[in-house]
């Protein structure tokens, strides 16, 4: 998508942060198939560097090496960046889920989710 027009506001983008390349590619494809603007990042630092202050919502893998999804959520909160977050997780890890929701997560999806659930969460976030 081209946002070259200077006066038009940047369209809301779905940011995906996941360390698994295949999962990234699948999410990118799924969201684009639903007509959404998507940007994918392989790690939390990459996202923070490039897109943290832009409008949109964030689909965040909870479990990543070095900086986890929960960490990233906390960092964003620390910087006053209130981007809506949808968490993806492999485990039904109750304590982590509680933390995520307390941290203001919009939704929480266990990996191997259906497209309609994800898209519903995204639309809610946007």
């Amino acid at each position: 998508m081209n946002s070259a027009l200077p006066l038009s506001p940047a369209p809301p983008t779905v940011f995906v942060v996941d360390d698994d390349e295949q999962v990234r590619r699948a999410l990118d494809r799924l969201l684009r198939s639903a007509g959404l603007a998507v940007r994918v990042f392989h790690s939390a630092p990459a996202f923070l560097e490039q897109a943290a202050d832009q409008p949109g919502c964030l689909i965040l893998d909870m479990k990543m090496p070095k900086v986890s999804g929960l960490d990233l959520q906390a960092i964003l909160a620390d910087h006053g960046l209130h981007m809506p977050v949808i968490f993806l997780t492999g485990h039904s890890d109750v304590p982590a889920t509680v933390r995520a929701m307390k941290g203001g997560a919009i939704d929480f999806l266990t990996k191997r989710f259906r497209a309609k659930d994800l898209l519903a969460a995204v639309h809610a976030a946007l």
Partner: protein
Amino acid sequence: VVVDTQGRIVRFNQACEQVSGYRFEEVAGKVCWDLFLVPEELEMVQGIFAKLVAGEFPTYCENYWRTRDNGRRRIMWSNTVLLDENKRVQYVIATGVDVTQAHTAESRLRVLTRAMEAGPSSVVITDAQGTITYVNPAFARLTGYAPEEVIQKTPRLWKSGKHPAEFYAALWQTLVQGREWRGEFCNKKKNGELFWVYSTISPIKDEGGKITHFVAVVVDITERKHYEQALEQSRQELEHKVAERTSDLETTVQNLLQEVDARRRVENEIQHLLQCERLVTEISTDFTHLEAGCFETRVREGIRRLMVFLKAERASLSEFVGQNICATVSCHEDGIPPTPPRIPGTELPWSRAQLRVGKRIVFSKIDDLPGEAAWDRETYRKLGTQALIALPLVVSGKTIGALVFVNASGARNWPAETVQRLRLVEDLFAGVLMQWRSEKALTGAERRYHAVADFMQDWEYWESPEGALLFCSPACERITGCPPQQFLADPKLLHKIVLQEDARLWAEFHREAFAQPQERSLQFRIRRPDGAIRWIEHHSRPVTDEKGTFLGLRASNRDHTDVKQAELESQRLHEELARVARMTMADHLAASLAHELRQPLAAILSNAEAAQQFLESQPPEHQEVREALQDIVQNDDRASQIIRRLRGFYRRASQERAPLDLNKLIDETLSLLRSELILCQVSWQHNASSPLPLVFGDRVEIQQVLMNLILNARDAMLSSPPDTRYLVVGTALQRPNHARVSVSDSGTGIDPATAEHMFEPFFTTKESGMGMGLPICRSIIEAHDGRLWAANHPNRGAIFHFTIPVCKVSNP
């Protein structure tokens, strides 16, 4: 002065008063000669006076007057008389002139002249121009020149030519300045002969200070010169002789010292050799009557004495046992680390080879070892061996051990002569070692004999080649529950009570034992009449007569049930524990892999749904669909791989060992555990040593060990802050033929109290742990001829290492 005819003073003028010191009034009327004359001249003066009185006048005379102050004045008198009218002498008138002064100079001159004429010294007088005016007779005698031959000539006449021009110039310079010159001359006589004089030349001056003459007083010193020369020559000769003699003496002393030195050296050597021989003799005496049990003490004492003699710091009698060099007996000085009891021969390949062919090893410092001994050099360095003598102990051409003397505190030389002498010691110790070995073997035999006696407590029987029992010991009843009579009656009874499961084994064994008689043993089970099952340890041995005829088998049977049961129980327990540990690990793995599987499955579902969406869009986006389908295939592959890995772990593989690439195995294991590690926020790193030779091992078992260590490391870090959780798995080649794997964590490290027990079964620090992980890991690694151990990391955390032998054939 005027006196009367009686000599009495009548007149005394002023001049008289001055000369005599008397006043006229004092001498008037006194007799003249009483007052003034000196006794020796009294007679001469009275004679002249008598002539005067008799009318003979005038007269002249010269005599002394004594003065009032008792001095003497020489007076020259001119006397006349005063006659009275009758022409008779009335008074004598004496007119005197004081000539004292003139009289003294003249007489001195006369004396001097006389002295000059008569003296032994030669005198030469020249005028101011050097023309000779006078020579004395002594001079004529000395030179051979008559005075008339030299008068009016110059002293050049007798010049010898021995003195340089400067000599004369200096002489003249001195004289012309009015100073006296003294010195020695060499002159020439009239006959040409040379002579030496000592000359004093003085300038003579007139009243005006002008030099008028020179007087030379010359003393002949030719003789003195001769003496001097002779003396000088004698002195020189003496000195020469002294020098010669001194040098002779020095040479002699030097030779003597050398001789003494050489003798002392020889004496020292002899003494050293004597000491050596005495020592060897004493040790040899000590070794003569060695009784069983005192070998070690005596050998140690012998080695210790040799060590002290050689001034070594460590010594051992080492034996070649299999691949190892074992220090059978050793001793060491205080403060020196002892000889290690066992050194693998592979650590000293060169030294071992040298000793094997009967060569000694002697080095003063490690660097003296030859290039091909590089490995040994490192080993010696590690052992702290700085200098060494190793003597091979050879028996019948075979090296059975070595006598080793070591200096550990520094390099040192070993005296070659002494080392040479140690040949005696080699034979001595080789002999003793052989004796000791046979003594040990004897002890073994004795032990066996006792064991045989114990056997008698066991059940013994003798079975003939025909299958009859020739003998059956009573112990059979205790073991089998059947009395001996029963066995003797029914030789097949044993076959009957053997447990069904072991019957075939036993039958085959029994057949073989008779077909090929030799010592055999077998373990089998029997069922007693009371139903109890017993394990029998059966030994059979052929019995032959002296001609070698086979007489049957002698069998010993021991009830082995308790031992066997314990062994089986232990084995069962071990297997059970291993299985439990494996299951625990598999549970971990299943959880981890379930998550792993979710990733591709999620990707597949998302891709499939995305593909559906793209197909439904107008127009359908076929490219996107194609790509989604490709990704679905890839993710499916990935899921299959994960499942394969899990199955591979569960599968109890054939347990066969095969060459393994440890680094690859580690990578696989880390990827299996990836989720576990990420979940616990542990970062990891694999430091692969490259290239690492293949190791020989059971893939599943080694992977189990790796997993266990990695999961332990993970657990150890759970209490640390997430950003400090760091796991490193490293590999390295460990000399000489092992690969080493190290798993380190950044946790709190191993508590020393824990360290002691952590390899013991059922020990655990975890709430839900079984305490089986590490003991099983260790038993697996040890079964692989490796080692597993743990240590605390210097900075933080713990580090676990294990080693596995690398494959002998390198990776093609």
